[in-house]
């Protein structure tokens, strides 16, 4: 092989290498740009509409008077109730599967079932809620029906996240506890759960922050799009922030579009706060573990 040939092949080899890296970097930047464009677009459209009145007014047919109070109260109420239903169930299930389950056939079946449930589209949970909670159990379109539906939706996520946090607790901690004569439950309750707590909390917050943004299942169970009052109790009809946003997006007037954007800003701000809390917790967790 001549020296000239050698140089040329080396050049083309290097070029291909650089090109792939460049392309990868370019596409990565493009995806990040899309995220930037999304946030910029929403902020540009919505910031002007944000005001104290917007946060504390009920919906209205006149866009400049409409606000998100009913939706905000509904969202907080529904998520709170979702947490009350889903967290004890999910954490208990995770404790069973991780600490007690073993490799039995039933445990295996439950595990497969949970990972399948995690892949079911959220709107299917809406149909379940409509058929089961709203019709058969007669809860109607209440906060309770909405929260029960979201709880079922959040359950697999909570179980998977909690299991991961429990798995990260070193085995030695359990063995030391047993060696001191503790029973299984004493070990779980006094040693494993406190050690796993930051990880568990992170998972719970992330699961609930996903539920806050859910729209489709709540529309499917028949949550109303126009509610001019905050829910009183668990039997009240309700709306939530994403549904209010959806309602405004689907109207042709541009002024309602601005309302939707302002609602999105509020929704994203709520998610940001929840995720920041989760990140701080995870950070503390990692420092403790390391």
């Amino acid at each position: 092989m001549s020296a000239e040939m050698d140089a040329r092949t080396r050049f083309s080899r290097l070029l291909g290498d650089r090109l792939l890296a460049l392309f990868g970097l370019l596409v990565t930047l493009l995806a990040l740009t899309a995220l930037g464009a999304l946030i910029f677009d929403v902020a540009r459209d919505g910031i002007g509409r944000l005001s104290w009145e917007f946060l504390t007014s009920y919906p209205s047919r006149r866009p400049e008077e409409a606000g998100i109070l009913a939706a905000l109260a509904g969202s907080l109420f529904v998520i709170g109730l979702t947490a009350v239903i889903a967290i004890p169930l999910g954490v208990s299930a995770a404790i069973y599967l991780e600490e007690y389950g073993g490799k039995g056939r039933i445990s295996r079946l439950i595990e497969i079932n949970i990972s399948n449930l995690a892949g079911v589209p959220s709107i299917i949970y809406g149909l379940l809620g409509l058929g089961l909670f709203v019709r058969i159990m007669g809860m109607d379109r209440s906060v309770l029906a909405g929260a029960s539906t979201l709880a079922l939706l959040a359950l697999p996520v909570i179980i998977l996240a909690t299991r991961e946090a429990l798995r990260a607790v070193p085995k030695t901690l359990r063995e030391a506890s047993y060696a001191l004569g503790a029973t299984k439950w004493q070990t779980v309750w006094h040693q494993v759960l406190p050690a796993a707590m930051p990880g568990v909390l992170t998972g719970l917050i992330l699961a609930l922050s996903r539920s806050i943004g859910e729209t489709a299942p709540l529309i499917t169970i028949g949550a109303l799009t126009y509610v001019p009052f905050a829910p009183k109790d668990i039997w009240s009809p309700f709306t939530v922030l994403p549904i209010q946003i959806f309602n405004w997006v689907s109207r042709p007037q541009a002024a309602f579009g601005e309302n939707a954007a302002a609602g999105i800003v509020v929704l994203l701000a709520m998610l940001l706060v929840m995720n920041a809390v989760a990140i701080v917790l995870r950070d503390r967790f990692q420092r403790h573990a390391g």
Partner: protein
Amino acid sequence: MTNRTRHAIEFLIERSLFLCAAFSILVTAGIVFVLLWETTAFLREVPINKFLFGTVWTPLFFDKQFGVLPLVTGTLLASAIAMVVALPAGLLIAIYLSEYATRKVRRIVRPTLEILAGVPTVVYGYFALQFVTPLLQSFVPGLAGFNALSPGIVMGIMILPLVSSLSEDALRSVPNGLREGAYALGATRMQTSLRVVVPAAFSGISAAIVLAASRAIGETMIVAIAAGQQPRLTLDPRVPVETMTAYIVQVSLGDTPGGTLEYRTIFAVGMLLFISTFILNLISNWLRERFREEYA
């Protein structure tokens, strides 16, 4: 406390924890039961071959037709567009992050990209309708205000982190010995990535892709907001269509009384949706298991 009461308490706790875990089986049973119940009632009035192979879907009109194909093509069209966006971009990002990027870059880029997966879908719907559609209309001739193209692209952006993160995990779990072998034979980094590492991680990457497709098919709000509500048997991405999920939303927004045929259509469509995503998820799980066996 005596030993016996302690044993009894331990036993009770274990049983109740087990019941919580077993509850998830009830959820699955509930889904299957509700869908099956209403779907069989629906199929008693509409023959199954008219439902599955009919080409006109007008259950809310005076002249009712129950051919689900327009909803199916609408769903497939929007999902296919999403995959065209997410597949190459996600794979390239995964290769870049796994084979080229420094640790520091990876640690910043990956969580930032994953923010995309955490944005509520109603926000993406707004983005598709108010930003992407007008942008596309400036250079795609004949693009309607509602279309499959814009929500398809936005859905692609949404599932991008799913493809990139899971594919990156697959690429990174390919043993380093394979890479070193390729380098020792004189391969460049690109040749190693594309001809050794990617083929070795193929089943893991396919698992990610199939899961992303399932997510796209079940996605609701983006298409409900930006694709329109006109069930139409077409593969033209520029005109309004309706997906299966968007139809369920459309009916839910109206005040359809329970027990009517219109009410049951959403469960029949939901059943179809459930079965298709379930099959895709099973395939994805099977591919992932296979990948794990190869490199465990």
